[in-house]
């Protein structure tokens, strides 16, 4: 579980960084964005984060807030 959690944490932080770079938003705002999409779509935040880190994540539902 620790191994999985470490991988998840890395993916989530990387995605926050991608959103911060793409939309010029703060880390907190990026995290909120991931959490909101996770809640709305019912997908785990780790999965949403993985999509956000893909180059040009079109169709991921991630748009500028």
């Amino acid at each position, binding site marked *: *579980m*620790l*191994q*999985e*959690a*470490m*991988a*998840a*944490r*890395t993916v989530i*932080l*990387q*995605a*926050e*960084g*991608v*959103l*911060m*770079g*793409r939309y010029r938003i703060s*880390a907190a705002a990026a995290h909120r964005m991931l959490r909101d999409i996770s809640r709305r779509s019912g997908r785990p935040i780790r999965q949403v984060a993985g999509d956000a*880190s893909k*180059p040009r994540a079109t169709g991921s539902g991630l748009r500028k807030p």
Partner: protein
Amino acid sequence: MATGGLQRSVAEVIRRHVVSASSVPAGIGTACVELLAVDGAAVLLMADSGAPWQVASPVGRLAPQLDEAQRTVGEGPALDAYRSGGPVLVSDVAAMAGRWPGFTSIVPAAVQALFAFPLQLGAVKFGVLEMYRCSPGGWDGAQLGLALQLADCAAEALILNVGAAPDDALHWLERLPGKAPEIDQAAGMSSVHLGVSLTVAYARLRGYAFGTGQSLATVSQGVVAGRLRLNDDGPRAAGQVE
């Protein structure tokens, strides 16, 4: 049996220092200092993702610098122990320039002996227990045996205390002292700025840190705070007039 008594004393010392889930890494480090007369110890949490590792609650004055040095250059005893799955014992750090040229050039000179042990349970590797001493010299068989038992107990204590559900473990990681979330965030940001993969972004951050004599964590904090931005034509301070 002497071995049985030793085993019990290792477990007993760890139990005494590990009082809660969040005190596991620091408790293990303190147990190392107490049992093996080292000057410091740290639990490094690693994954196979290639992302730089998390240093959890290092014990000892030079432990943060030691771990930061390895994280910045991406080489050193901890990484070798993780990759090889076996202990890495260095009785004289200064003599290791051939094996780790980057690491030996930036590690604090006072760190003279290093001992790194993979943390694993069965086939699952999740980090390294690393100890340092400010005097050169190796260990005898009894000390090595003790260190191996400490690494086993440390792996078990981590797994038992962190929580069985993935969300529990994630929560534990997020609350851990000594974490550096900016490194992964800075890699994400730089991958957008440079139009490169995350792997390349980490390499660029490391290269910039090493080239400017800063730690990876410091450079990453600069990127996240908007003070620094890596560009194709080399880094520049944010807001600098072109």
